[in-house]
């Protein structure tokens, strides 16, 4: 796991390496300080030699200043390294997400991707910064303090070695019992947040059904669970402090007892004993720090895991090895196609049909009958499970992805406009489109009539999600955006549902005259939208129940007849 994330360090390796070096230097210096202190007391103060006091004191001053400089530099390098690392991880994730297929996106869900890119990364960044600063500090501190202690006296530090196993076993036990509990706490937090989120989003439903008390009970039970589990987990962790103090005090007492005897029989000076005490403190402090670090690491483990899942996710729609980069025309052939999302039950079965270039094709079917699934196979947003889909006579799996998607424009059911201007959104379709081309497309999509009325015209601002436009206006803008790609095939996935019938008819007629060569596929709920199509495909439960013109289907397809009857000649409402 660490290895995978370490790949993201890249240009910040310098900082990541420098930071521990600085830290180690700082630690070495801070270990030397008590050593000189001992000298200062023994050789200076004890013998009343102020010259020695001054010269050693001077050295000590310099050491402390150097140690500060190294410490500050270490902190600076660590923060730059960590921020850089986080920004690389974020970029890698984002870039990889851009490669994702639709099924990858479905699997992670967009909300899941957002949390991974924000909260999880922040967590890992904090951990990384702590790591670069602390990972080397604690062990070096222990090693140097030990070395220094042994230099003073070769037997006394052995006391410390005796206490160490107690500490290690204690820490191990704490971690072992606390970790699973913390994992549980985190998943409970997720659960609690879900309750809040659903409540806030569905507050109208809650109030309508007067379910406030039940919601409070639901929240109460999960927050009680959070409290109880946190208490259990934290209670184990706080045992850390008494364990540490126990070891520290035990060492102090043993050292004062044994040290006293050594002092008395002159195998050690009192100054040295003093230094010994400060080394004991230093070592134990470092160990305490390491134990906190380990705890933090495990807390970030979950976040790191979630990030790596995204980093390592391979798109399941790969570019073919020797892609065909030319698409002859807008003909489409489905040959015995089966399709399913992931391992779910197939939602398209045995679909076979041929569409000639330039034809207009309607698709009609009930809720969940597979209309959207069917058309998503054409620009290869998903891959078929069985059979094949060909565009312009070539299997889509052999076509260059970019060529294919640029030739197949799709107006999605859940369409999105982006923050910016109308023109900016339009240029998604074609970066180099001139204003004239954009106006042309807007006119065809029957959007120019309202865009031209906006005070800023093409430069009118678009809010996030296009919220400053009505549903019908948004749909027309999205159609115009798709038209600008000048595609060979254009697919409308129920994308005129909020546009009234008259306008819709005008759009269809506009398409016919401006893009006669382009194959048009229209998914619709209204018969009136597809009535004039060259061919209508009726889907039922993932199977094609009938193909033909309006008149043919009216004569021979019961489902089509039922749909027709259910609508007779009702119009839809939209603002004009």
């Amino acid at each position, binding site marked *: 796991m660490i290895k995978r994330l370490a790949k993201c360090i890249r240009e910040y390796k310098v900082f990541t390496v420098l930071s521990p070096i600085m830290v180690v230097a700082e630690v070495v210096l801070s270990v030397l300080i008590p050593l000189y202190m001992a000298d200062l007391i023994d050789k200076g103060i004890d013998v009343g030699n102020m010259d020695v006091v001054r010269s050693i004191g001077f050295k000590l001053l310099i050491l402390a*200043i150097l140690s500060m400089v190294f410490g500050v530099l270490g902190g600076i390098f660590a923060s730059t390294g960590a921020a850089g690392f986080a920004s690389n991880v974020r970029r890698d994730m984002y870039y990889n997400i851009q490669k994702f297929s639709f099924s990858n996106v479905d699997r992670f869900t967009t909300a899941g991707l957002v949390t991974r890119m924000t909260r999880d990364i922040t967590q890992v960044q904090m951990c990384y910064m702590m790591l670069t600063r602390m990972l080397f500090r604690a062990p070096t501190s222990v090693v140097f303090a030990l070395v220094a202690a042994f230099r003073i006296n070769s037997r006394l530090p052995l006391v410390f070695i005796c206490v160490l196993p107690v500490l290690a076993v204690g820490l191990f036990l704490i971690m072992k019992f606390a970790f699973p509990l913390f994992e549980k706490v985190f998943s409970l937090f997720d659960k609690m947040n879900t309750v809040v989120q659903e409540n806030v989003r*569905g507050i109208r*439903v809650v109030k309508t059904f007067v379910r406030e008390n*039940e919601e409070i009970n639901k929240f109460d039970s999960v927050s009680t669970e959070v409290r109880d589990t946190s208490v259990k987990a934290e209670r184990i962790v706080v045992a850390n402090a008494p364990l540490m103090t126990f070891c520290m*005090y035990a060492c102090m007492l043993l050292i004062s007892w044994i040290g006293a*005897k050594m002092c008395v029989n002159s195998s050690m000076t009192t100054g040295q004993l003093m230094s010994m005490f400060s080394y004991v403190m230093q070592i134990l402090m470092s160990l305490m720090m390491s134990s906190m670090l380990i705890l933090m690491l495990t807390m970030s483990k979950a976040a790191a895991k979630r990030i790596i899942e995204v980093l390592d996710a391979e798109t399941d729609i790969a570019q073919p090895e020797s892609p065909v980069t030319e698409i002859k025309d807008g003909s489409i052939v489905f040959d015995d196609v089966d399709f399913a999302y992931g391992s779910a039950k197939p939602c398209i079965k045995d679909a076979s049909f041929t569409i000639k270039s330039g034809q207009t094709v309607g698709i009609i079917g009930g809720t969940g009958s597979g209309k959207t699934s069917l058309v998503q196979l054409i620009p290869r947003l998903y891959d078929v499970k069985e059979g094949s889909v060909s565009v312009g006579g070539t299997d889509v799996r052999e076509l260059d992805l970019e060529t294919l998607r640029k030739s197949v424009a799709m107006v999605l059911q859940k*369409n999105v406009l982006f923050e910016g201007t109308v023109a900016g959104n339009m240029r998604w379709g074609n970066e180099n489109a001139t204003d004239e081309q954009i106006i042309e497309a807007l006119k065809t999509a029957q959007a120019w009539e309202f865009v031209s009325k906006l005070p800023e015209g093409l430069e009118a601002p678009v809010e996030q999600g296009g919220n400053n436009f009505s549903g019908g206006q948004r749909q027309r803008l999205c159609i115009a955006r798709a038209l600008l790609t000048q595609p060979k095939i254009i697919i409308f996935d129920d994308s005129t549902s*909020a546009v009234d019938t008259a306008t819709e008819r005008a759009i269809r007629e506009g398409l016919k005259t401006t893009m006669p060569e382009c194959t048009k596929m229209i998914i619709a709920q209204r018969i009136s939208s597809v009535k004039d199509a060259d061919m209508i495909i009726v889907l039922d439960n993932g199977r094609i129940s009938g193909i033909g013109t309006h008149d043919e289907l009216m004569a021979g397809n019961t489902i089509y007849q039922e749909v027709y009857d259910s609508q007779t000649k*009702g119009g839809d409402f939209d603002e004009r």
Partner: protein
Amino acid sequence: MSDKETRKKSNEEQGRGPGTMAAAHGKIRLDKNSVKLFGRLMGFMKGRELGLFVTALALMIVTALVSVRSSTFTGTIIDDYIKPLVGTADPDFAPLLRAIMFMGGLYLLSIIVNFFYNRILVNVSNSVLKKIRITLFKHMQKLPIKYFDARPYGDIMSIYTNDVDNIRELMSNSIPNVVSSLLTVVTIFFAMIKISVALTGVVLATVVVMYVITIFLGGASAKYFSLRQKSLGRMNAYAEELLNGIKVVKVFCHEEQAKAGFDVRNEDLFRKTAKANRLANALMPIMVNIGNLQYVVLAMVGGAMAVNGTAGITLGKLAAFLLLSRNFTRPVSMISQQINTVVMALAGAGRVFELIDEAPEVDEGKVTLVKEDGKYFWKSPDGTLTELKGDIRMHKVDFSYTGDKLVLEDIDLFAKPGQKIAFVGSTGAGKTTITNLINRFYDVADGGVTYDGININDIKKDDLRRSLGMVLQETNLFTGTIADNIRFGKPDATDEEVIAAAKLANAHDFIEKLPEGYETVINGTGSQLSQGQCQLLSIARCAVADPPVMILDEATSSVDTRTEVLIQRGMDALMHGRTTFVIAHRLSTVMNSNAIIVLEHGKIIERGDHDDLLAQKGKYYQLYTGKTE
């Protein structure tokens, strides 16, 4: 749209997440307001918790005293017990042993006490956090819809996650740390004074230096943290927008541009983060080494004093003082490290209390709903019963969300018991607003809306809403089984009732096909189901509640017309004998209504049944036929 704009703006101004208060001031400041906030936070501790907390504080004093005693211990042991023995022929170790045993006892006490107060604090802090959460949630349930409409979901969520998290950090980390640090500082201070006033002066001078540095560096880093917060907000917003639109990005092969836009924001965030952390990181080594410098200075000054024998300083006393001084600066720098956390937590507490102080929905209604012999009655405070018939009238209603722009103007309408009334009109015409007034999500002046002749403001809100079933376009399902979701409408519904409701909504067939039928667990967004299927569930949820009056707001907009015809039969059965309000843009849904009301810009422009309106050849005719006359 205007409320959406203000909402967005306020969001930008406030910035989101922790550190905002520090950001607003640009420097660390703990003013009167912070003290008040802190006081209110502590107010969550009551009875048992308060007792436990005080006990924990008392226990902390014990450990602080022991730790001070321990730092003088090394000095005394050297001066009083070891030195005299050095050079003696037959050293008597008994006093030394006694001293060590005595300290050992103290240490043991301190360890035990430490163990207990930590456990107590864990209990107290988690209980308090739970109390805060449940208080928040309970209060939130009482807030009017206006509150939710005026805020992005993310802002409310962030109170429960970020803000409470920061308070948690304060409770379980900062408070114990600061308290025990302060105790240590105070006790050590007196111990130091006892040894040498002059040397204590040196120590105090360094504390002043440390204070100045903390204020300076802390303030600067707070400024950068606020910049970072804004930059983070921009990055997140961009990522969120582009990730939500990822399918569009892919359809348009717009990946490269999406990457470029991201890189700009990512780079900016990197710079700000690096700067903010740089300053915060520098704080600790500076503090520690000021401690080291002080140590050296003390050794030199104290050494000189010891050599010259000034002010009764001995080697042992100097040693003790040196240790004390280390133990003194450590908690001081510890406190300085906590300042950022405290400021962030208080900023979080500010937002928590803001929610808690939000005025709840007013409910002065006294008329209640009672059910007797299968019939509903309105029961007024004097005990008289009026049968619930479903006669709803609006009289000259004007309404505005913001106070300036009228959303509804002069609305007069009546629904006789059992009638189906439809509202049609474009986005923003005020259709949903009318239903918001009927169920009192928003309030109008007295007498504006009556229900069976009773002013709805006199009806107890819960009972009013119980009498109104609603199916909304946004289905808002909840994590749980399908059956649980249907049962949301009636918690005590039997399995048979649930299935009957599902059949009525034509949802039974697809539910049966799910891997575990009615026991299939779905998540809140219903991502395993199609939009149309979610709507069928939400209809079933309303059907099981069996409300006397129903409001259907675009209830079948995502259901295909053929399925709609199938539901229609069930719906017609459901609507039979109930007053029903229907909002739909698909005119086939509303054709058979008793009255169709056409709204435009908040005004009623046409009304009548289908045939009347066609004959009028007005807006409705235009919409229905797709022709402009």
